[in-house]
């Protein structure tokens, strides 16, 4: 199974399934890095509404995706973090520093629109100070 990637103007959107496999995530990283160039994407939205668990590997890969796509010129926003998953991540000691988040897909797209309107294509520090 590969994670489908949707295209909306210059934004790529991927929704992670409940029990996402390591290999699917690694594939998604490669695929997004490539597709960002193909469509000259300026934004990537990763929807994790359905995921059951974010453990250290999942988080590592999400951070890698944000880092790689940023180097390719596209900002990544993670949306739909379930409250229980957020709670467990913090207890586990995992942080998503430097990666933008929004409540849902709508919020993620709005955030990306704001950024491209203001010409802000900078990195993590600005994302934190937002």
């Amino acid at each position, binding site marked *: 199974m590969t994670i489908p990637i949707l295209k909306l103007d210059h934004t790529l959107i991927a929704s992670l399934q409940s*029990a996402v*496999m*390591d*290999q699917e995530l690694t594939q998604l990283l490669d695929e997004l890095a490539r597709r960002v160039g193909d469509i000259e994407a300026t934004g990537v939205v990763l929807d994790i509404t359905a995921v*059951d*668990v*974010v*453990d*250290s*590997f999942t*988080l*590592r890969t999400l951070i890698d995706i944000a880092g790689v796509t940023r180097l390719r010129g596209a900002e990544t926003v993670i949306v739909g973090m*379930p*409250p*229980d*998953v957020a*709670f*467990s*991540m913090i*207890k*586990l*000691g*995992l942080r998503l520093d430097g990666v933008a988040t929004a409540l849902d897909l709508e919020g993620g797209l709005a955030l990306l629109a704001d950024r491209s309107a203001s010409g802000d294509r900078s990195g993590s520090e600005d994302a934190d100070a937002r």
Partner: protein
Amino acid sequence: MHDEERIVIASENDIVTARRRGRELAAEGGFSGSDLTVIATAISELARNIVAYARAGEMTLRVIRRGDRSGLLVIARDEGPGIDDVSLVMQDGFSTGRSLGLGLPGAKRLMDEFEIASELGRGTTITMTKWS
């Protein structure tokens, strides 16, 4: 109602199976809400550790009772290389593999009880419990 389950951990698919069954057993044992995700996350980290360092092992998940409280006991057992210095792997940020080095200390923070027994060349057994 099944109160105990044994799961062979040998691939990344087994990691997902273990945390899913852990969540189901915990729900049967009376856990709810964020506790279910907390337990599933801790199980995921331990199972991941087995696959990464020992290649294979097994996990036992069991609903236990103490007085009027119920708990979920998780035993992760492998016959891998073992851990040389347990206090070192329990430090945040220590990792010998491709991870964030938060697996074991993180799992400990998620659960109520946590114990490691390890012998070099023999393997590692981690026992952890969450009380409802």
